[in-house]
């Protein structure tokens, strides 16, 4: 295993920038977001987590899928999607696990070429957690605070240095091409493992394998849900989207756009003839919870929740996913 001086991280990122677009968490007016690093940006590496999950780098809030044009009685289609080589630096273990969940969706039956291409072209440098956030509960699903797989490099804060573990060939290549990394000692490795372990011990622990949802209690909580959609937009594993055509005023040229949608929106399940199978707010809430905690588990063998705590933090009615899980295990 290797390690890198904290002071050298920025130089390392500077080198990466020569060949890749480098994104890292940046604190702007108290809001931490992944941002393309410019010269003056200082990456924030002691953050809890970004406000919006980094799923947007793979499944953007909106993306052009194709363009179309009508000329001489023919319709021409133009491939408009583009993805360059990217590095996501400082992504948290829960969010890496979120991507592993999304991979199942993107690879199932109908492949999602846009998502998969971005996944393939993006290098993930994860940052393990040594200090839990107030609302974090990744330990419940084993999706943090340490990270076993899914990233190309894994950093752990051990004081003046970051311990660096290689997770893939791509990651190993990055290390071998750089002078900033030195060999880590056994003591460093032990320290990192201890810090992550201590962090885990501070977090809630529920045996998620015993989870059996208490639907009555969920409906009760759901009666307070305002269907504000914010949980679905910031969630690292919510992937529902809508496809819209944006036409120019003459209607002979336009773009097909895919954008995020929310199952909390009543229009999400509205059918022709005005029938809506999930017409009540509470039904939509229950569906979201069961999708995360039951349907995805039954379908892919992994929970659809990674315990990042974003929904708990942002919910205007303070509905807690952790409480729902705890009530389902008791």
């Amino acid at each position, binding site marked *: 295993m290797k390690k890198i001086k904290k002071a050298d991280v920025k130089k390392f990122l500077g080198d990466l920038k020569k060949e890749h677009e480098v994104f890292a968490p940046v604190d702007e007016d108290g809001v931490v977001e992944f941002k393309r690093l410019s010269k003056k940006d200082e990456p924030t590496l002691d953050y809890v987590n970004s*406000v919006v999950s980094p799923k947007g780098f793979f499944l953007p809030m909106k993306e052009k899928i194709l363009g179309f044009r009508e000329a001489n009685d023919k319709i021409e289609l133009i491939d408009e999607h583009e993805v360059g080589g990217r590095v996501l630096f400082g992504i948290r273990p829960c969010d890496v696990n979120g991507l592993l969940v999304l991979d199942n969706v993107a690879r199932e039956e109908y492949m999602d070429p846009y998502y998969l291409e971005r996944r393939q072209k993006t290098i993930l440098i994860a940052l393990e957690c040594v200090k839990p956030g107030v609302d974090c509960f990744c330990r419940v699903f084993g999706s943090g605070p340490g990270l076993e797989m899914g990233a190309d490099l894994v950093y752990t804060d051990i004081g003046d240095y970051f311990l660096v573990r290689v997770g893939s060939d791509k990651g190993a290549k990055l290390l071998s091409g750089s002078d900033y990394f030195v060999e880590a000692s056994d003591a460093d490795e032990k320290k990192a493992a201890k810090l992550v372990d201590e962090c885990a011990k501070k977090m809630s622990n529920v045996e998620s394998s015993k989870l059996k949802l208490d639907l009555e209690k969920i409906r009760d909580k759901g009666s307070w849900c305002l269907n504000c959609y914010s949980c*679905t937009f910031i969630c690292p594993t919510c992937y529902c989207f809508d496809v819209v055509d944006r036409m120019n005023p003459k209607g002979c040229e336009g773009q097909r756009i895919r954008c995020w949608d929310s199952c909390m929106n009543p229009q999400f399940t509205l059918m022709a003839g005005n029938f809506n199978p999930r017409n009540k707010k509470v039904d939509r809430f229950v569906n979201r919870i069961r999708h995360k905690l039951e349907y995805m588990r039954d379908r892919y063998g992994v929970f659809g929740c990674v315990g990042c705590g974003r929904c708990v933090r942002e919910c205007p009615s303070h509905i807690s996913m952790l409480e729902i899980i705890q009530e389902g295990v008791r």
Partner: protein
Amino acid sequence: MSAEIQDALRSEARKLLEEGKVDKILGYCMSGDRVVPCMVYAADEVDKLIYNNRCKINLARYLRECDGRVGVVAKGCDSRAIVELLKAKQLDRSDLFIWGVSCPGMVDSEGRQYRSCSVCTHRNPVVYDGFLGKLVEEKPRLKDDELGLGSRDERMSYWSKQFSRCISCMACRNVCPMCYCKECVLEKKDPEWVARGGDISDIFVYHAIKAMHMAGRCVECGECERACPVDIPLMHLYSRVCRDVEQLFGVEAGMDENDKPPLSVFDLEADAILEENEKNKKS
């Protein structure tokens, strides 16, 4: 002070439920270490009701979805939202029993006061059937240039930066006690005023339409900016248009059930609203 209010609230709530004057009570309770809205149906449950400086949630938003006779706890902003909803015929006054409480100024889990609460000018309730605790002194309104944004260009660059973070999740609309339309112009498909999957100009249009629809109606509870995941200070926009309506029509949102909603009854021919409202105030 909050403890006194809490005790009084519990005993009043018990009495009302026992007498059968209300079917249920909408208030606050603890869930873990968070303060959440709750509904109490039976007299022996009233001890879960609490009141302290973390009861920031505007209960009027939930009141809209209640049926039956409801007892409700109302701070300044809750009561103003109730008044606005009564004006818009979204609530029936005879179904409500309102306990007015004064607000100590709400704080988050780390003890920081919310921005909307720090500029609040109506901590005391404006409408109630019973009042608990004591009135608090109201703070004067801050001057318009409180944001210190300066010129039009500076404001444009300020809001461009704020809106560039917007993820169009619509939480600001969905949590707003005043947004009760069954079909919202912001989500309408035909005609589509705000394009889904649009660019920053669509986000500007979204927020501009929302702000215009808050004119004369925003009760400045700050739910929108608290719900915003990316912390856009939205209430500034709505307060701004409300100040304009106050100047033009002499009506402040949520203060009097008998005020005419200026933008609903506006008539170019007869500029009588202002006069009528002023007459009301004098009498």
